[in-house]
Every structure is written in C-alpha cells, then in structure tokens.
C-alpha cells in the first residue's frame, strides 16, 4: 500500500464502482415506485373479488362449495416460493429461502412436499434441497396479470387432480422501503377472512350462486398470486435500492480513507525531499 501510484489506481477503481452502484440505486428507486404504483392499481379488483367471494360463499350451501374451497387431509403439500431473478438485493432471497425451508421441514413431518419456484435465485438455492415440480424464471420486471396464468393453472390443476392437498406461497411482503418480511400464505384450499359487514342476502344470482362461485374461484387464486408477485417486485427493487445505497456509502468512505493515506504519503515524501534538500544545502553552507 506504500506505493502512491498503486493508491491512486485503487482510488480510481473504487470511484468507478461507486458510479455503478449509485446508478443502480437510482434505477432501483424508480422501479420501486413503479412497482408500488402497480400494486396500488391492482388493489380495487382484489378487494372486489374478495367481497364477491364472501358474498357467494354465504349464498352457496356448504355441500355445494367448489372443491377448491373444501379442506381435506394433507398428505402432499405444494410450495410456491417467490424469489428474484437477479441478485444484488441484500438478504431478500436468503430470507425467503430460509423461511420456505423452515415451513417445508415442518410440513415434511407429516406430508410429502413438492416445490414450485419463481425466480432464478430461488431455483439455484433450493434445487438441491427439495424435489422441484416447476420453475418460472422468465417473469418480467413489470409483471402483468397474464404472467401469473401458467402458475395459477399449474397449482389449480394439481390441486383438483389430487396431486397435492394444499398449496402454500412463500414470498417477501413489502412492508416499507427498509423492511421486507418473508411471509407464508395458504393459497389452496381457499379460506376466506370473516366478512366484516355481510351484504344484503336478498340477491339474484345468474345463473346460480354455486356456478358463479365456481367461475370466480380461479380469478381469486390468480388475484392472490398476482398480488404476491407485485409484492415480490416492490420488495426486490426496494431491497436493491437500500443495498446499493449502502454500497455507495461504503465506496465513499473507502475513497476518503484511501485519499487520506495517499495525501499523508505524498506529504511524507515532500517532507523527506525538503529535508534532503535542506540538509544538502546545510552541508554545502558548512563547507563554504
């Protein structure tokens, strides 16, 4: 480290790194806002679907409920684990994978487990641990409702065919910019929250409640998956933004420290040169 030339080169390289991390930070910030907007835009539909589900379930007799609303003993569980395609987003994927493994270990005590992974990161880290049914790694950065259709089809068909008796989703819930909480949610069989204010019971259903409900359930499943996917996207970009801000700050600190060392070195060199000259001049003066 004593070589000033080496130090200068090092400073320049850290400055380049800082430029990249700062650019990534800005890009992530704008993508995070976009992802949050998409999540906000999706909320009205999700709320209406939930409300309508509750109304239809109340109007349909218990024995007429579609299979996706009926619970059965769990011998085989499917897990949908949502991770990102790209890295450099802090501990986001590690946390989701850890949560998923905890849940899966628990399920394994009493049932077989199959895995459906979204995102390259999760595929890499979970591939060795659990038999994988499918992996979706081509979901775009701006997911649309259509992106979710193949995943929804897969879990619904599997559930209806009896391949598995429940479907769990593990995803990073976007709490705020600094916090993304790994969360588990049971997708199938559908269990609805209590209706806070039950709507008027005197409703005409065309053709009848059970038929409409049967048609609505797939939309509900897709909606829940789409919402978790939007949470994943918002979480990814905020985690990346925070990670890149930390990297930028670290780079700045490093540049300061290296600059200090470099200046000290430079000054020491100048001082020693002055001493050289001064002592040389002194020696000459004494001889004269």
């Amino acid at each position, binding site marked *: 480290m004593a070589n000033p030339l080496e130090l200068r080169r090092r400073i320049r390289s850290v400055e380049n790194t800082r430029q990249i991390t700062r650019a990534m930070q800005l890009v992530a910030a704008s993508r995070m806002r976009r992802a949050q907007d*998409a999540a906000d*835009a*999706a909320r*009205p*539909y999700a709320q*209406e*679907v939930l409300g*309508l589900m509750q*109304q*239809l379930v109340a109007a349909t007799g218990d024995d007429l409920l579609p299979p996706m609303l009926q619970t059965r003993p769990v011998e085989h569980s499917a897990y949908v684990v949502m991770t990102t395609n790209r890295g450099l987003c802090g501990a986001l994927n590690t946390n989701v994978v850890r949560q998923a493994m905890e849940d899966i270990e628990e399920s394994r005590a009493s049932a077989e487990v199959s895995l459906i992974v979204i995102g390259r990161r999760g595929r890499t880290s979970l591939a060795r641990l659990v038999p994988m049914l499918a992996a979706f790694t081509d979901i775009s950065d701006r997911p*649309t*409702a259509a992106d979710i259709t193949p995943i929804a089809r897969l879990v619904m068909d599997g559930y209806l065919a009896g391949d598995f008796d429940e479907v769990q989703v593990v995803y990073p819930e976007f709490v705020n910019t600094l916090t993304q909480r790994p969360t588990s949610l049971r997708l199938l069989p559908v269990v609805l929250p209590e209706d806070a204010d039950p*709507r*008027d019971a*005197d*409703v*005409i*259903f*065309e*053709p009848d*409640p059970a*038929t*409409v409900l049967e*048609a*609505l359930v797939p*939309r509900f499943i*897709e*909606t829940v998956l*789409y919402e978790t996917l939007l949470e994943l996207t918002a979480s990814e970009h905020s985690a990346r933004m925070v990670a890149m801000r930390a990297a930028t700050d670290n780079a700045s600190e490093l540049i300061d420290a290296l600059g200090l060392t470099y200046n000290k070195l430079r000054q020491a060199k100048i001082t020693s040169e002055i001493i050289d000259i001064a002592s040389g001049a002194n020696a000459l003066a004494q001889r004269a």
Partner: protein
Amino acid sequence: MAGLTLTVVSPEREVLREDDIDMVVAPGIDGELGLMPRHAPLVTQLQAGTLRYRSGGDERYLTILGGFLQVMQDTVTVLADGSERSDEIDVERAERARAEALRELEEARVGGDDATVIRARLALLRALARIRTAQRAGRG
C-alpha cells in the same frame, strides 16, 4: 332520482368510476342485460362483449373480456378479466388478432387438438369484442 354509480375494475387497474349514470347495458352470460337505477341486487357472469352506459345525453362504450357484474344499492361493479374504454382500443392490433385467430381455427379444423380450438375461439371472441366496441363508438 339519483343515477347509478358504475365502477369497472380489471386485475391490473381501475378502468372507470363514474356517478350519475342513467342506464347500463352489459353483456350478460345469457344475453344483454339492462340496468337502471333501483335495480334489484344482482350478481351475474359476463361474457366478452361491449358494455355501454348512458350519462346525460351521451352513450359511452367499454370492451369487457368476460367477468362478473354486481348490482348493489344503485352501485354497479364490474369485475372484468380485461377492459378498455372505447378510446383506448388498439383497433389495428385487434384486427390482426382476429385474423390470427381465424387462421388458427382454420388450421385446427384439420386435425388440431381441442385445446388449440378453445384457445383460438377465445382469442377470436376477445378480438371481436374489441372491434365491435370500437365500431359502436364510431371508430374504425
């Protein structure tokens, strides 16, 4: 007499929210469905088609790609699988989609499987819903 409130939501966004509407005509699963203020509470499925509504003297049009409709106390809520206002429709793209779907149907007739036929038929219905909505709104 107060008018209807009409809300149209699709999975990705809220397409429309408007008050004081005199009448809504929606593509019900068993045919067109007219709704006026003080309609009885109703829940029904929708098929792909055009939803039109009248407000003041104006009549406006929306594409509905299937979904559900709910009437509750003078509030009409449409949960569409997809929906566009007539001015948002990309007519050229819909025409291309129609041609593509027709071609696929033709091919599938000669030894295609059921899934392809169903998919092509659905695509055709969606394209037609868009084209007809645009036509009714006086575009295309």
